[in-house]
């Protein structure tokens, strides 16, 4: 057990799975000799060779399709997009082919799509997006969003062993965070050996009785900060990291709302049209009687992700916004 970075956790998961199962292979741009844009696969090609760590031509649809074809033939590809944003090049391969194959009785498509997602620092409109909404409505895809190194490793292993296509959202911002700098609930020892994190189970980051704060991905940070502030004001906020978006842990959400009667949904993606809408709708449909206040959502502003620092800051959801929304809910 040790404190390692999110990036190290991802590398470890890939390495261990490739050692475990020779049908596992990696494909993506510049992942070989160069080790990938974010160095997650640094040293892999030297060890596993050019056939298992494949530098693809610049053609997301082509290499995604090829990986799916290999999966049909029984291999277990892990596809890396350089930035999550570029998956728009190949949505049909994922939404139309991979997601529907098992339903059409054509066998499993065991494949993992790694999408380095969300804002880092001034990535601009095309290197900063949260892509979950493009996949969320399509049956046949699993979507996971690990926020800790522990989950990154365990969920990536789980994803590789899953017989279904898995959208694996990883957060560039977290790659280099030093574990010692993280708030306690996110500072989790990572086992050196094998373990997996099952899909569909939320993580309770912080227990509380007055309010439920549901989040996932990068905004676990703002959520914990805001909960801390509210604690100082005598309001106890329960913070849930959803971890898996498909399938999602409905029981955890409904259970917490039943207890608190108040729900704030927070994600880095834009508020309008984000996946938060679905969770709000389910709560408003299934535990309406338990609600003591409106369901609030906090997300990014209604525009593309701008690059210039003051704009990017104004675009992204902030701890201050979360604090304010929590206060309003608490006072309702």
């Amino acid at each position, binding site marked *: 057990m040790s404190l390692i970075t999110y990036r190290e956790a991802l590398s470890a998961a890939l390495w261990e799975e490739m050692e475990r199962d020779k049908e596992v292979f990696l494909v993506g741009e510049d992942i070989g000799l160069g080790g990938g844009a974010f160095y997650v696969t640094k040293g892999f090609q030297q060890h596993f060779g050019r056939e298992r760590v494949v530098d693809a031509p610049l053609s997301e649809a*082509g290499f995604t*399709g090829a990986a799916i*074809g290999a999966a049909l*033939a*029984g291999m277990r590809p892990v596809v890396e997009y350089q930035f999550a944003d570029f998956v728009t090049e190949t949505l049909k391969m994922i939404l139309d082919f991979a997601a529907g194959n*098992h339903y*059409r009785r054509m066998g499993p498509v065991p494949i993992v799509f790694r999408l380095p997602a969300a804002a880092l620092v001034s990535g601009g409109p095309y290197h900063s997006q949260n892509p979950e909404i493009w996949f969320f409505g399509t049956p046949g895809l699993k979507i996971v969003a690990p926020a800790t190194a522990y989950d990154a490793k365990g969920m990536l292993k789980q994803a590789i062993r899953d017989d279904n296509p898995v959208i694996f959202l990883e957060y560039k911002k977290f790659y280099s965070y030093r574990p010692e700098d993280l708030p306690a609930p996110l500072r989790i020892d990572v086992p050196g050996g094998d373990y997996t994190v099952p899909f569909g189970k939320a993580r309770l980051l912080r227990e509380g009785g007055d309010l439920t704060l549901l989040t996932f991905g990068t905004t676990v940070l703002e959520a914990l900060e805001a909960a801390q502030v509210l604690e100082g004001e005598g309001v106890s906020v329960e913070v849930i990291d959803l971890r898996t978006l498909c399938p999602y842990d409905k029981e955890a959400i409904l259970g917490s709302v039943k207890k608190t009667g108040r729900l704030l949904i927070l994600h880095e993606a834009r508020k309008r049209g984000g996946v938060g809408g679905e969770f709000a709708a389910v709560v408003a449909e299934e535990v309406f009687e338990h609600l003591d206040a409106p369901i609030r959502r906090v997300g990014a502003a209604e525009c593309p992700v701008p690059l210039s620092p003051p704009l990017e800051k104004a675009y992204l959801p902030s701890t201050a916004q979360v604090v304010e929304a929590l206060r309003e809910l608490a006072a309702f």
Partner: protein
Amino acid sequence: MRPEVHAAASEPVRPEELAGLDFYRDLADRYLAIEGLDARWIPIHREGLRPGKETALRLHHLLSLTRAVEEVLDSAFRAGHIPGTAFFGRGNEASSVGSASCVRDEEWLVPMHRNCGAHLAKGHPPYSIMAHFFGRADGPSQGRDGNLHVGYRPKKITQLISHIGTMLPIAAGVAWSAKVRRNGQAVLTYIGDGGTSTGDFHEAMNFAAVHRLPLVVVIDNNQYAYKTPPADQYACPTLALRAPGYGVPGFLIDGTDILVVREVVSRALDRAREGGGPTLIESVTMRLGGHSVYDRYSDYADMETLKLWQEERDPVKRYDQFLVEYEVLTPGEIAASHARARKEAEEARDAALKCPFPDPGKVADGVFAE
């Protein structure tokens, strides 16, 4: 396979010849082989392609079965038995059967929406195909999809999705798995003339070429993509000219002659199996019917050229004639083969019409593999 192999008999192509290329006229007794800047005409010696009686019968059965299955399906559609739509390959039977009959049992086939003959040649039973067209529980997708959007895992046939082009990267991936596993297998796939305009065609050809994958791509150029003729689809005289841009060998053949198709495709598959990488083969036919059962062909087609191909380049008729002319089969044997095929298709239809529809209570089952 490489043009040099045929160099003795072959003649270099003069640049002007390509500019004025006419598929009907120029491929009657030769085909074109291109590698890099080297382009040659290869003469066809039909006597040399003459199959033995057993092979001849098997191929004849597949060709006539393809024709019969599609004709039976067409009537079934008119009779209201096919939900949705149906596409047929009339005109491409030799291209489909000739190519797919070169694929080994243990190898994958990645067919498109008009390759009924390829399905049959690879061993997909007519009953299964019919049940699928009729939306029944015994169709391979159990009613989830229809028409030739069907695969058949027991015979290693993939199922396409509608998006034209998509299957080419998929096929490259299947070929990639064969390469990595070093199992000596090749993969055969198809794409239409329309399909060659997709980005997927390009990305897949390039990927396959860079990784020298054991992939043979047959361009079924049936001279229409829905309502669009080649002149609105591409601006080169033959799509075989795309091959040098990927660094792979290219061929242009008459796809209505089953023996030529088999000759060129089997060599390409062998080359692939031996590690020689992909080959691109343009196989020219004419779509002898509308795009789908709903299409009004004469709204937009050049009916005169169509008639010419119908009369002179019907692949089933051509093979019948060849077999008689070269004394491989007698007219009686040929007629018997046609009758057998028709009966097989009708029996499959009758059986499939007795198959129940899938259970609507299970509509959302099986989305995920457990």
